[in-house]
């Protein structure tokens, strides 16, 4: 068994988009590679529309990948073995309101993975499993017969997490699990994620756009821009010594609760908008907004290169 639970190699996900009479490729994810170690967390950050969610969904084959390899636990994930793979890989969704069926009780929602994979032999066993899952995520047993709309956002997200944990997965894709929640509840849910990781040894792909949250929970962080990874490094290193200009600007936008520091530091404001993924700039996707851009950037797309200490950056000039 290798030390990586998940290895993604040159993953590509193109969507066909009809633009008038022409069929265009929308390159939502373009040649993305990364690895996640057993029991560790990779944070994936980037602005909206950069393909973070698509990466997460493609990992679970909710979209058929256009190209590339996903190797989970030493085995390649294909559309044939995906049902078996979904016993080990699960997903927590962003919106706790629309990700739970309004016509099902909590018991049925959490029990659904058990039903689908037939993980119990008697009704009593099913119920026991569900109740212990509810306890794991901090829900009362008496909530089992209630409907999802009777809960608050934080509680609903706990239900979603319990559902993901039902099959006892080794890896969970967390697709912005806290961005729809209040800040006070975010902390609770994030602490619960960490606690579960310690207890059950699950690995996470933690997708978010809040760098502070990601730094807190992740071992490593990957920064994404327009379907490509631009920088991958250990969490603290990336936040303290960002190399890629895009990461630098992202970090400069993170609010710091200290007025002195905030006054002293310089905010890097990017100019212009994100280019449309239908009309990607040639070469480096970030060059249209990058102050270091040169002639070379317009011609050759930079590869992720190792800058030592496991810090990968895709930039010609930095």
């Amino acid at each position, binding site marked *: 068994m290798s030390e990586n639970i998940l290895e993604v190699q040159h993953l590509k996900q193109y969507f066909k988009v009809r633009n008038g009479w022409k069929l265009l490729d929308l390159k939502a994810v373009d040649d993305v590679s990364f690895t996640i170690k057993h029991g560790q967390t990779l944070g994936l950050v980037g602005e909206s529309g950069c393909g973070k969610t698509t990466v997460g*969904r493609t990992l*679970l084959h*909710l979209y058929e990948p256009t190209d590339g390899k996903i190797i989970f636990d030493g085995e390649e994930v294909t559309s044939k073995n*995906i*049902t078996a793979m*979904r*016993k080990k890989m*699960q*997903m927590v*969704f*962003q*919106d706790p309101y*629309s*990700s*739970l*069926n*309004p*016509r*099902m009780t909590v018991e049925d929602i959490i029990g*659904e*993975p058990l039903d*689908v*994979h037939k993980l119990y032999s008697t009704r009593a066993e099913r119920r026991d499993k569900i109740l212990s899952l509810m306890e794991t995520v901090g829900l009362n047993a008496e909530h089992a*017969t*209630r*409907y999802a709309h*009777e809960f608050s956002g934080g509680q609903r997200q706990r239900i*979603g997490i319990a*559902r993901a944990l039902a*099959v006892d997965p080794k890896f969970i894709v967390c697709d912005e699990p806290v961005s729809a929640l209040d800040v006070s509840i975010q902390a609770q849910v994030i602490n619960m994620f960490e606690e579960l990781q310690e207890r059950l040894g699950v690995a996470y792909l933690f997708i978010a756009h809040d760098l502070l949250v990601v730094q807190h929970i992740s071992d490593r962080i990957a920064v994404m821009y327009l379907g490509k990874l631009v920088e991958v490094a250990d969490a603290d290193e990336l936040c303290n010594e960002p190399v890629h200009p895009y990461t630098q600007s992202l970090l400069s936008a993170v609010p710091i609760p200290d007025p002195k520091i905030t006054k002293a530091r310089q905010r890097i404001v990017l100019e212009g908008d994100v280019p449309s993924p239908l009309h990607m700039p040639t070469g480096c996707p970030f060059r249209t907004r990058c102050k270091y851009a040169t002639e070379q950037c317009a011609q050759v797309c930079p590869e992720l290169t190792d800058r030592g200490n496991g810090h990968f950056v895709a930039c010609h000039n930095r």
Partner: protein
Amino acid sequence: MAGYDLNKTPDKQILSMQLDLSKFEKATEEEKRQQDVMSESTTFFKDGMRKLFKNPLAVGSIAVLCLIMALIIVAPHFVPYSYQEILSVEGKRDKGAKNLAPFEYSKAEQAYIAKGNYRFPHIFGTDEQCRDYFIRVIYGTRVSLVVGFFASIIVLIIGLIYGSISGYAGGRPDLIMMRIVDIIYSLPDMLVVILLSVVLSQILVFKSGSFLAMMGSNMVSLFIVFGLLYWVGMARLIRAQILSIKENEYILAARSIGAKPGHIIRKHILPNCLSVIIISTALQIPSAIFTESYLSFVGLGVQAPMPSLGSLANSAREGLQSYPYKLVFPALMICLIVLSLNLLGDGLRDAFDPKLKSK
């Protein structure tokens, strides 16, 4: 600060800027419980039913429908005549009992009553073949309701299966399936109904005495016509519903769990479009009754002597000027049934449509 008790909240001094610490004391158990009041757990169905019974129009139409149902079940047991029986008094055919007005007795009957016997009144009078009209209307209502009910179920089943497959599959299968629906939709349905009824009534031959033979080949062809033509509206409706429900994240969640399409349709999609299904089925019944009445009216409906409301209205047309009440009774019955089913359908929509929840 001698004598300061750590466990007690210090009192607030007048004019002191100190916060009133009594406001920050821990909540008692009772106060905590007050915070956790949650609305009572109700199922979607119970909630809808509760709202339905608050709607006076819907309750009224349910009452009318129940009354009609009770009438058509009970009446054949206490009315001593049958729908095809030509009236007779003491074994002799009563030739005077032709076209009697409501509650009128023929001469032979009057003589019979004068002897001290009891004769059940002709509540709606009699028809031109000396048959009791009340029991014929009752049987006509039976036929119409049966047609309405079964035709709607046929439409529902075909539309449901076709619409959910088309909506769930999406893409090319959906495109092809919907074009087929469009073609069927574009046929003038009355023309097809008439053609099919004519052709089918000659092809279909049943064993005498069987249930199908009792209904008559026209009735069976009516069901076939419904099965062939009228499901398209339902299929479109359900497809549209499923297309919108499919976009919800819980469908994606179910897929990520590893659920099969059949499971997703049954557990997630159909329960969520149940309200639309119930409503449109309720509204389908009156339209089926109307079609049946229309076909019987033009002579393509049920086979004589079995009456239906439409064929009764048709035969009443001939003597309309002398005996207008013969048209009024079946027409009134059709109106009552169709109106109350329509109102009930509206009530169901108001009760089950989640978008009208605030009402």
